[in-house]
């Protein structure tokens, strides 16, 4: 600051008053109020968000790195990790295709009942995960109405991998669609219409015009969808049957280890999922910071 003043030519007519400073502005609070509010906010967030996250890693490493890594050599743990990856690998792409289809139909066309469709897509968010599991028990359970046919033609759904995948799809159903719909609504249809009028086919328009426009929003939705798919507990818990090594996902395996007082192992597996959550948050923050203009402005989360 002083350097600039020194190098600047001497001001012929110095300003007779100091430039206005915002410190005593009427549209902000007294300093002590500001610091008090910041302190309350930071204390609340530390207590409710930072501390639980920190405690996962502290508990996992309570007995050092040896027992921590031992937890991952257990064959049931490895099976749980594999099953979690498998369920996410099926659920996320299916919901991705659905999200793209639903967003395309809703944002590029006008039809009756559109608002209802959007509300219905959001439905799984307002259903308790346990109820989400229950609905598949009612269908595929021992007394379920679809079980006689499925049992004969497809195989076991409940207490098996297909049930877990179904429950995962249900709870992650809206993530990608609800990320894409507001984004594609903002972008309108001009780009697509230009491409089509220049002779592009529908598919070319989608892959070369629409997809590049929405890629960051799409990635954002996939990240959130994947985090929830790998972490889902309630819904999967109802349909899994908790068969160790066969139908246990990582969150279910954490519960079993915890209830068997194997705290280090439970928190070690939990720390893997916590790291996934942190990577998700980091990627999400990066996308919001770097590509804010290419994400939907009106996101609820």
């Amino acid at each position, binding site marked *: 600051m002083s350097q600039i003043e020194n190098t600047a030519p001497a001001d012929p007519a110095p300003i007779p008053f100091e430039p206005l400073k915002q410190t005593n502005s*009427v*549209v902000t609070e*007294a300093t002590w109020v*500001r610091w008090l*509010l*910041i302190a*309350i*906010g*930071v204390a*609340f*967030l530390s*207590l*409710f*968000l*930072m*501390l*639980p996250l920190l*405690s*996962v890693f502290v508990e996992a490493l309570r007995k050092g790195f040896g027992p921590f890594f031992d937890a991952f050599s257990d064959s049931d743990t490895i099976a749980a990790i594999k099953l979690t990856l498998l369920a996410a690998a099926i659920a996320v792409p*299916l919901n991705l295709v*659905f999200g793209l*289809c*639903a967003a395309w139909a809703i944002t*590029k*066309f006008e*039809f009756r009942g559109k608002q209802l*469709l959007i509300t*219905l897509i959001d*439905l799984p968010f*307002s259903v308790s*995960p*346990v*109820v989400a599991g*229950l*609905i*598949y028990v*009612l269908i595929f359970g021992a007394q379920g109405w679809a079980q006689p046919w499925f049992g004969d033609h497809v195989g076991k759904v409940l207490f098996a991998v297909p049930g877990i995948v179904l429950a995962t799809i*249900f709870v992650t*159903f809206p993530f990608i669609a609800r990320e894409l719909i507001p984004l594609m609504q903002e972008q309108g249809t001009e780009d697509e219409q230009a491409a089509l009028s220049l002779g592009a086919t*529908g598919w070319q328009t989608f892959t070369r015009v629409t997809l590049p426009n929405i890629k960051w929003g799409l990635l954002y939705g996939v990240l959130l969808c994947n*985090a929830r798919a*790998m*972490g889902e*507990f*309630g819904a999967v818990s109802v349909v899994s049957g908790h068969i160790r090594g066969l139908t246990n996902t990582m*969150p279910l395996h*954490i*519960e079993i280890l915890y209830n068997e007082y194997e705290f280090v192992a*439970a*928190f070690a597996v*939990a720390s893997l*999922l916590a790291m*996934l*959550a*942190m990577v998700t*948050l980091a990627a999400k*923050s990066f996308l919001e910071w770097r590509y804010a203009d290419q994400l939907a402005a009106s*996101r*609820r*989360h």
Partner: protein
Amino acid sequence: MSATATLPARRPTKRAIPGLGPTLGFSLFYLGLIVLIPLAGVFFKASGLGVSGIWHVITSERVLAALRLSFGAALIAALINVVFGSIVAWVFVRYDFVGKRLFDAFIDLPFALPTAVAGIALTALYSPNGWIGSLVEPLGIKIAYTPLGVIVAMTFIGLPFIVRTVEPVLREVDRDLEEAAATLGAWRWQTVVRVIAPAVFPSVVTGFALAFARAVGEYGSVIFIAGNFPLVSEIAPLLIIIKLEEFDYQGATAVAATMLVISFVLLLIVNLLQAWVRKRS
């Protein structure tokens, strides 16, 4: 004139953009198969019980206690979040401080962190030998394995809903209005209450409803810290699971249908509220 006459009459194409049929068709098919038909199954099954049957199940002492706890704790947790979530949103929008970016990124932690992980972490913190539990135990306060623990877990899970709904609205509040209020002689506190609060109020209500709805159905983060004592700290979703394990499918369905109806009504209120706010602005 003659030139235009030779051109074939241009019929407006019905739709410039292709793909409505397959995309909408697949969307409806997938939505129906995964969400609507299975959900309808709950009501179909519940209807087999009849109103009196459902009433009989949900008015049993244990179910009533569980519903009361789920809805009561969710209400308290959502109110806690309204207070502190609004403060957090305010601090994020209006002030600058070290680490703001980090805290901002972590607001979404309850969305990203699997509920079971949150559940065991909160239990470890608030149990009598945990970091926080051991601090409050000398005061005679027990948090883990009591309804208080349920409230703590539900507060954790609902926090982002309030912050993320209020934050963008608060950012849009017109500073000119605040200056106008100040020049007209309003104290800062009066400006906050009379100018800013009405503007953000609808978003606070929306956030409250979302946090409440989420907390009512929450399972994973609650069951570890709750202790699950019947009549005391047993939440409604857990009761559904217990009834399922006892092969009491009808009882489980009755509780589930009750929770679904209440959630749908909440969802409807939120949507109507948002539509009303959109219309007003």
